[in-house]
Every structure is written in structure tokens, then in C-alpha cells.
């Protein structure tokens, strides 16, 4: 689906800075430093604080980069989409190379994360991820299309709609949502590449197995604990 063309202009979507996360991070840093100095804190506790701080740092790069001209910029004259990835720098994607776009949201740890899923060819994907020459050649030999995933948290609803709509106006159609397999978003392999397909099948099998295993173990163990608590066990 492609919407009607409108007058061309550069559209930017602002970078939002989260003060709450910065305060949380500063507090955690202070706590880590303080617990390292005083004596009666155990090593396990100290490691926990350090890991928590590092996890928050890794999961939200938006805390560090707080003065940025834009988060997403769509330039219809140069036909590019520029994405600011915080401390990982900016990436420029030619709009002609994007096959489709989709925006999904998912909740994790009481926060909603939004995902911009861009379907592209392996060359653009390798450019985006700064891949080495060998990986680049391997990707181009094995895949038809690959998916660039951009995750962000702080954009408002209007800005999210504006982002997708502007991409849509610039000849990028809306595609289907790509589900994650083992936390990654594998591309579409070439039908002739048997080994790649086999490897992807193995990953899908492992994902299928693990998702059901976690659920089944939790349900069976709690049900059997409840039954054993009141009616006794048979083993």
C-alpha cells in the first residue's frame, strides 16, 4: 500500500532524552561506588550492582547521547533515511533499497519497546552493520533479503505514525511483521542454499523447543507442587 504523494520536504523526528533513566543510572553508579568503598557489602552484591548498571547502559544508548539534531531523518531529495543510533553513530540507508517497512511494539520489563523493521537486500544490511568483507560476501551469496531492526522507546505515537507514513509516501510499502527466532531476525535464504536453510531450520526447531519447554516446565512443576502439597506425591 502506497499513499498519495505530497509536496517533498525533509522530515526529522526528534531525539528524546530520558531524564529518569539518567537519574537511575547515576544512582546506580553512586550505589556501586559506595558499596565498593564500604566493607560489609559482599562481593556478590557488588557484582550485581555493576551488572545492573552495565545492563541499563547497554540496553538504552539514549541515556548517553542527549543532544542530537534528530533521531530519524527522511530526505526525499537525496532519497535517504538517516538513523541516529546514539553512541553507535549514524547510518544512512537509501530509500530505494528498502523493500518494506513495519513498526511493531512489544512490552518488556514494564516498558514498551518499538521496533522499526526494514526489509533490505544483504548489501545494505552489511553496510548498516559494518560487516567485514567475508561476511558481506557470505550474506550476499546466501540471502535474498535481510531485516534491519531499529529498537527505540521514547517516541510519541504521533511521531511513530509520522515516521512510517513518511517512509510510505516515499515509495516504501508496508510489509508483514517479522517474528524473532532465538532473539534474532533471520533473513530469507536463497532456495538453492541448502546448508543455510538447514541451519535456519535447526534454529527454528531450537526456538520452538525452548519456548514450549519454559512454559511446560513452569506449568507442570507448579501444578505438581500444588497437588503434592494437598494430596501427597506418588514417587
Amino acid at each position, binding site marked *: 500500500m502506497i499513499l498519495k504523494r505530497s509536496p517533498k520536504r525533509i522530515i526529522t523526528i526528534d531525539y528524546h532524552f530520558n531524564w529518569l533513566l539518567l537519574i537511575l543510572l547515576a544512582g546506580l553508579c553512586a550505589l556501586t561506588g559506595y558499596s565498593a568503598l564500604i566493607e560489609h557489602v559482599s562481593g556478590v552484591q557488588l557484582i550485581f550492582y555493576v551488572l545492573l548498571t552495565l545492563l541499563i547502559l547497554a540496553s538504552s544508548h539514549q541515556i548517553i547521547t542527549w543532544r542530537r539534531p534528530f533521531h530519524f531523518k527522511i530526505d526525499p531529495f537525496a532519497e535517504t533515511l538517516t538513523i541516529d543510533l546514539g553512541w553507535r553513530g549514524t547510518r544512512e540507508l537509501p530509500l530505494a533499497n528498502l523493500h518494506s517497512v513495519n513498526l511493531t511494539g512489544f512490552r518488556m520489563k514494564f516498558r514498551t519497546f518499538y521496533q522499526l523493521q526494514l526489509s533490505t537486500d544483504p548489501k545494505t544490511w552489511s553496510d548498516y552493520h559494518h560487516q567485514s568483507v567475508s561476511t558481506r560476501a557470505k550474506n550476499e551469496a546466501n540471502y535474498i533479503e535481510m531485516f534491519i531492526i531499529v529498537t527505540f522507546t521514547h517516541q510519541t505515537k504521533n511521531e511513530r505514525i509520522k515516521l512510517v507514513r513518511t517512509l510510505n509516501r516515499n515509495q516504501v510499502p508496508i510489509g508483514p511483521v517479522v*517474528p524473532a527466532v532465538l532473539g534474532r531476525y533471520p533473513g530469507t535464504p536463497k532456495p538453492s542454499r541448502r546448508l543455510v536453510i538447514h541451519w535456519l531450520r535447526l534454529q527454528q526447531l531450537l526456538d*520452538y*523447543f525452548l519456548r514450549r519447554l519454559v512454559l*511446560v516446565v513452569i506449568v507442570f512443576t507448579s501444578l505438581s*507442587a500444588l497437588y503434592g502439597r494437598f494430596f501427597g506425591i506418588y514417587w
Partner: protein
Amino acid sequence: MKPRYTLLSPWQKVLAWIIVLTIGIESAIILNINFLQAKMLGQWRVVSSDITYKAATFKTVSVTSQEIIIGSQTIKLTYSARLRDSNFLRENHQNEVDYYFDSKDNQDEYYPYLLVVPKSKNDRMTLFTFQPSQKNTPSVNTYTLRQEHDR
């Protein structure tokens, strides 16, 4: 939304489900061992006894999932995932399952009661009570119990 498992055949899914269910049942059995046996629950009558120290006599033992009543003594059971928080200890042996119970007013470190449940017989149980405050050579009273069936 694209389907997640595009490359899997039905047989692979069935195989995955079989392994998942096997591990699920195994984990349910392995992780939940700190409970009473199902056949322990009910009313028990003292058939014979071997008494080595003087204690209050009793004729019946009642076992429920909440408490165990031995004569005038009532032992409230506390369950916990952590072994040290529950007031009984289960030991699995080849032919029998041993349950050590701690009473509320027990000051000593050892368990004052031991119930031995044989695996082959359903209506027999043996109760051992230990005389308090004799740690090194505790005197033991042995009671053979038989289940009272409701008629």
C-alpha cells in the same frame, strides 16, 4: 505477521513436543520431592509396639497434609521450597521412604519422630519416636501402624 516456524515439518514439531513433555514430567517429579507420600494420608491404628522408654500411650495416628496427630501430640507441617524452612525431612531409599518430623517444642538438634513408609506395602507404616535430651544414645520406641479403611 509472518509465521515464525516456516521450515519445520509436523513430525519435527511432534518430536519437539514429546521431548518437552518428557522433560516437563521429569522436572515436576525431581523438583517436587519435599512432600508427604499420597498413601501416608489417612487414619492409622497401632498394631504392635516395642517400647524401650516410658511415654504416653496412644492408639491412633492421624496424617493429613496440614498436620500429624500422634496421640495428644500435634505436629503442624510447614512446607517450603527450601529444605531448611520446612519442619520435616524426606529421605528416599531403595525399599522405603523415611520422613523425619520436628515438633514445635523440640529444643534438640535431631528430629524426634521418624515415619518409615515401605514402598511395596500400601497399608503399613512404622513410627519411631526418640526420647528427648539423650543425644548420644537415644532410646527408641517403635510402633507398627496399619491403615484404617473407612467402612
